[in-house]
């Protein structure tokens, strides 16, 4: 009996092994591993969307022409899929979708707001869910300290892994084939008010991560995890410690730098020629009580150029010193090469800033080249000094900057209206760049809002508590637009007004741009004239960027649809029609 049982068990095991061998995922071909070589050449895989911002330069430009301005009016829904992550947690009643899909070889990788990763097989003209990795976030723990929504902006691919973040501060590596978690590590600490919403950036076998929480008195940082050893390779704090370079720009006696903010929650870009990572930093804390933290408050409100191998700061450019308006400078730096007027090569880093100005810096040196307002109403400063790029009222010898003092929030000007509002300008939704037209497309929020200043008091500084020095409310109507800037001239070439703020982000193709509106529309515009050529109302809140890719030789456009982020909680009074938009969680895929 025993030997029979043994024999039976043995044959079962062997059969299972044979079965496993048959159904075993195809041994990873060399082409399936995502290597640094492939990432450096991601645009050559024209049918894929291999990286968060499409490529290391963050242009979000696809060369695909199958869908073009002649035929885009025929674009239709090809298939859709419902995802999860709509439930709430902490102070949030629901999760939302802000992610950029990643597409490789007909496989789509998306995340929902609570960090679940979905692998969807897009072949055969439909979507088939292959696996879902649910990181089981402690929802109340993370949700209580997420200032601005339950969101996850996407994954990155490396080797045979899918690298993702979670709102509760982890980095997770999931096997691309099996959907099983291979390892995870805690990078950010919600006990300190830190959360992570951005997608990682993969550079030279490292995953680079940013952190959120400047509204909760964190000290911001950018960290690199060695993907082979799973250990932290470097961590660069955006706020200097005592005695470190930049600490002299915190001139208070309360150790304000310890809760100085400087979040880093938008994925950066990378120039391999100079081995430099570009990353934007956010507001200083407390957001609106600038007198609590006199001094320029480095390195908040800046773009940083970091040595990719060591994380050391090579240069910085600060857009809004001693910022009183919560004008985060976290936005992506789009890397563009042009010929200058004398044929000299210009290597630019473009940033559409929260403060309503679009900037071009020389990315080899950080030198300011030009800056232009891209919003209709801008009242916080009279303009930029054309040499230094700083607001004209900026006085390096004054510790607290008043800018246009009549409107700037201050303990002597406690209730005031500012334009753009603290939400921008431009918020997290990404810009895109067309290299033939040299047009840089900005998703604009046309806004003003009202700020009330409350003195920050050291006794109130506690972990996981808001540390904002007051706050905004939103009595004014907010609308949107798309601004196309001619990067060769640094001037606005075209603008399209939109009824609602731009909360989705841009996709550029040779003759089109795609974007969405929180009222439900996904639209295609003519890349030159911005004339609307196609629109589809998804019936949900569109606040995620569109991507395009091919599967089996056919071109598709995909976008996540699910109302989320900060808008419907904190800013909804400015767009009362959007109160009707219901939460949801879907992937829409369009084709001709």
């Amino acid at each position, binding site marked *: 009996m025993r030997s029979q049982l043994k024999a039976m068990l043995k044959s079962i095991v062997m059969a299972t092994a044979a079965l496993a061998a048959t159904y075993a995922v195809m041994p990873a071909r060399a082409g399936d591993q995502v290597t640094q070589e492939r990432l450096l050449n991601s645009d050559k895989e024209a049918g894929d969307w291999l990286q968060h911002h499409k490529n290391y330069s963050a242009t979000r430009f696809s060369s695909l022409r199958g869908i073009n301005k002649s035929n885009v009016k025929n674009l239709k829904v090809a298939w859709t899929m419902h995802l999860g992550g709509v439930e709430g947690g902490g102070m949030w009643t629901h999760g939302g979708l802000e992610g950029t899909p990643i597409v490789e070889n007909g496989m789509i990788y998306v995340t929902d707001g609570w960090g679940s990763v979905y692998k969807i097989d897009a072949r055969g003209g439909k979507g088939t869910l292959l696996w879902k990795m649910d990181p089981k976030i402690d929802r109340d723990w993370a949700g209580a300290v997420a200032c601005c929504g339950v969101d996850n902006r996407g994954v990155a691919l490396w080797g045979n892994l899918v690298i993702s973040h979670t709102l509760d501060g982890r980095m997770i590596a999931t096997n691309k084939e099996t959907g099983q978690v291979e390892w995870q590590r805690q990078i950010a600490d919600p006990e300190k008010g830190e959360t992570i919403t951005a997608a990682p950036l993969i550079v030279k076998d490292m995953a680079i991560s940013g952190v959120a929480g400047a509204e909760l008195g964190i000290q911001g940082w950018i960290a690199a995890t060695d993907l082979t050893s799973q250990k932290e390779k470097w961590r660069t704090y955006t706020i200097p410690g005592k005695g470190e370079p930049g600490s002299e720009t915190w001139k208070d006696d309360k150790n304000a730098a310890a*809760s100085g903010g400087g979040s880093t929650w938008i994925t950066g870009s990378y120039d391999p020629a100079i081995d430099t990572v570009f990353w934007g930093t956010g507001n200083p804390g407390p957001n609106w009580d600038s007198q609590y933290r006199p001094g320029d408050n480095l390195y908040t409100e800046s773009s940083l150029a970091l040595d990719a191998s060591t994380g050391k700061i090579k240069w910085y450019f600060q857009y809004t010193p001693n910022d009183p308006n919560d004008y985060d400078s976290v936005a992506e730096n789009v890397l563009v090469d042009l010929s200058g007027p004398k044929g000299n090569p210009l290597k630019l880093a473009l940033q559409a800033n929260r403060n309503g100005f679009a900037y071009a810096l020389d990315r080899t040196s950080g030198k300011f080249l030009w800056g232009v307002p891209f919003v209709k109403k801008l009242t916080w400063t009279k303009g930029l000094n054309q040499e230094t790029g700083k607001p004209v009222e900026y006085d390096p010898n004054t510790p607290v900057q008043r800018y246009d003092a009549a409107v700037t929030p201050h303990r002597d000007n406690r209730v005031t209206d500012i334009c753009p509002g603290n939400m921008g300008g431009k918020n997290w939704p990404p810009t895109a760049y067309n290299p033939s037209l040299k047009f840089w497309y900005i998703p604009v929020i046309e806004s003003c809002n009202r700020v009330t200043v409350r003195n920050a008091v050291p006794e109130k500084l506690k972990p996981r508590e808001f540390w904002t020095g007051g706050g905004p409310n939103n009595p004014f109507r907010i609308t949107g637009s798309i601004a196309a800037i001619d990067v060769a001239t640094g001037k606005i070439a075209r603008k399209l007004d939109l009824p609602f703020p731009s909360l989705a982000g841009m996709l550029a193709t040779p003759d089109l741009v795609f974007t969405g509106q929180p009222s439900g529309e996904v639209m295609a515009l003519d890349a030159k004239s911005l004339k609307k050529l196609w629109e589809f109302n998804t019936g949900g809140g569109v606040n995620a960027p569109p991507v395009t890719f091919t599967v089996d030789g056919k071109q598709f456009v995909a976008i996540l649809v699910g109302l989320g982020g900060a808008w419907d909680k904190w800013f909804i009074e400015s767009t009362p029609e959007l109160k009707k938009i219901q939460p949801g969680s879907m992937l829409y895929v369009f084709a001709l």
Partner: protein
Amino acid sequence: MRSLKVITYATLAMTVTSAQLAMSQSSPSLEPTEAGKAIYKRANCFGCHKWHGDGGGGYGGAALSLRATELTRDQIVETVACGRPGTAMPYFARGAYDSSKCYEMSRQDVGDQIPPEGGVFLRGPEIEAVANYVMDNVKGRGDPNYDECTSFFGKVSRVCDAFKTAPPTGASQSAEPSK
């Protein structure tokens, strides 16, 4: 006989349903804490005043501390129903400034100082319930503690861990993240 049974069940179902309705409408007087707490969450008082009611800053505005407030119960009821003109405190009573005046003002009187409309409308008993909750559980309390936190969130999450021990003195730059 058979039809009588059906009628009886139907009547019973209706009775139970209306009893439940009656209970929910009168539950504020039966269980002030739980009903009021539920409204505090549902109406998102939490979002600006925070779970502990101490308010503070954030994108919801500089919400006032309900722990430090000196408002009376009636004043809290009025503030919830009518909001606070010129501030971000919304009104939660359907018809505020329209079918019923607030602070003796109509919509025309209050003009552009009208507060925002709350995300949900609360009925009279619900406003009373949440005012009771604030009076009994929030107003006049000292620093929030672990028991209050777990009473709000339950014990499943780490969300109350910070209250288990004395809070750290501030962000430590040299602290290594746990692996």
